[in-house]
């Protein structure tokens, strides 16, 4: 049980995302989670052991460490990644709910017994329109908010993104102002800047995706307003069904096991 479980959950959401959403997910997994697990955790692994203060006074090191690092960078990043990934679950739940409704309709409706129809419903990829559009857009909005909040928290707590080599501490029980030295400050600064840069890229991707969805929404609306004579429901149903058939044929080799939202 670790980040792999999150990967399984979010992998299922990937199917119903836009292209920008898929890029965002890739950036999240490769440049943030993977870097956190294989590199950053090692850099911060010995942070308290190698935090050395120029005093023999017992307790001074503990108190100074706690004062300068109320919450470690690595834990803050882990929390940020969990919070930022969570809104995608809203989409997964909405899709699961729609599938459930379709299955119920299929069971109640005509008994044509199309072989593997339930399987088709399970494998079906939903288009981002209607209520799913609102869920998807809200999830992107929440992602943006969480990213921004965590970046601000980082900046506020650590007075910028640089890790200093030396910190002066005079918290009790340190007898005087004492010099405390942080372990691997340059490496930590490099990784901090890297993680901040990738967060910024993710924010830009989310903003781009939001703009894309809003543009699509307004274009669709203006199309509907421009063609009032056609029966929109009937035409959309036919169009949607044809699109779904085409997508089913093209997606039939790209099944992802949805361990969580089935």
């Amino acid at each position, binding site marked *: *049980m670790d980040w792999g479980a999150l990967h399984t959950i979010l992998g299922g959401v990937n199917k119903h995302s836009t292209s920008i959403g898929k890029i965002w997910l890739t950036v999240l997994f490769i440049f943030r989670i993977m870097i956190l697990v294989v590199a950053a955790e090692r850099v911060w692994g010995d942070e308290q052991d190698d935090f050395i203060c120029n005093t023999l006074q*017992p*307790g001074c090191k503990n108190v100074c460490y*706690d004062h300068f*690092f109320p919450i470690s960078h690595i*834990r803050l990043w882990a*929390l940020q990644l*969990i919070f930022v990934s*969570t809104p995608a679950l809203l989409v997964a739940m909405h899709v699961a709910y729609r599938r459930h409704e379709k299955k119920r309709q299929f069971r109640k409706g005509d008994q044509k017994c199309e072989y593997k129809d339930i399987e088709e419903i399970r494998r079906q990829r939903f288009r981002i329109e209607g209520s799913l559009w609102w869920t998807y857009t809200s999830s992107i909005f929440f992602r943006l908010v969480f990213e921004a909040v965590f970046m601000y928290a980082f900046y506020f707590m650590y007075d910028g993104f640089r890790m200093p080599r030396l910190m002066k501490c005079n918290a009790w029980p340190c007898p005087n102002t004492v010099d405390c030295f942080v372990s691997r400050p340059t490496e930590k600064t490099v990784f901090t800047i890297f993680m901040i840069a990738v967060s910024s890229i993710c924010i830009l991707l989310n903003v781009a995706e939001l703009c894309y969805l809003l543009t699509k929404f307004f274009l669709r609306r203006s199309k509907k307003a421009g063609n009032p004579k056609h029966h929109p429901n009937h035409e959309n149903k036919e169009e949607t069904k044809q699109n779904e058939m085409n997508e089913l044929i093209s997606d039939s080799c790209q099944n992802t096991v949805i361990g969580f939202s089935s």
Partner: protein
Amino acid sequence: MSWGFLRDLLTGVNKYSTGIGRIWVAVVFLFRLLVYIVAAENIWKYEHDEFECNIKQPGCENVCFDHFFPVSHIRLWALQLIMVSTPSLLVVFHVAYRENREKHHTQKLYKSPGEIDGGLLCTYLISLILKTGFEIVFLVLFYKLYNGFKVPHLVKCDLRPCPNTVDCYISKPTEKMIFLYFLVATSCLCIVLNLSELTYLIFKYSIKCYLKKCVKKHQ
């Protein structure tokens, strides 16, 4: 055998849950289990090594640590996660029993073995009550054992063999406190979800029973 087992259990439970139950599973998974494994465990990893007393007397640190931390926060947290997830097994066992019974009698005895009605509804309600009970018990235990949810940075200890009252310093108290508050917040959220689900199920099935009675009366 590790947390993966609990993850598989929760995924199996998800199939027979209501909508609120699935939200509960998501909260337990992401905000409790995942946070515990990727963040919290590392904070408490070296808590004994980093616990420092202002004394050279051998044995004093050990005795003081044992006095102030009879059971470590992180172990209580793990126990809470296990105990809170386990009542859901009752539902899984009941569904398996139903499926077995259908196989044994080789005929359809239930509309759907996984549908929450009749005996399975009682089992589900009992599991919800047990889950809520365990959550409350552990929160009270945390509160009583540690005098609230604060983690002080200094504790004063005067147990033998410490010669006098000695200052002992806890490592990373602020970080531990932040995660403890996070634990309390998620526990409270899970309690609210369980109570909502309980209310929803009781309400839904009361209405169903009442409507059935009405229909019978008219007939």
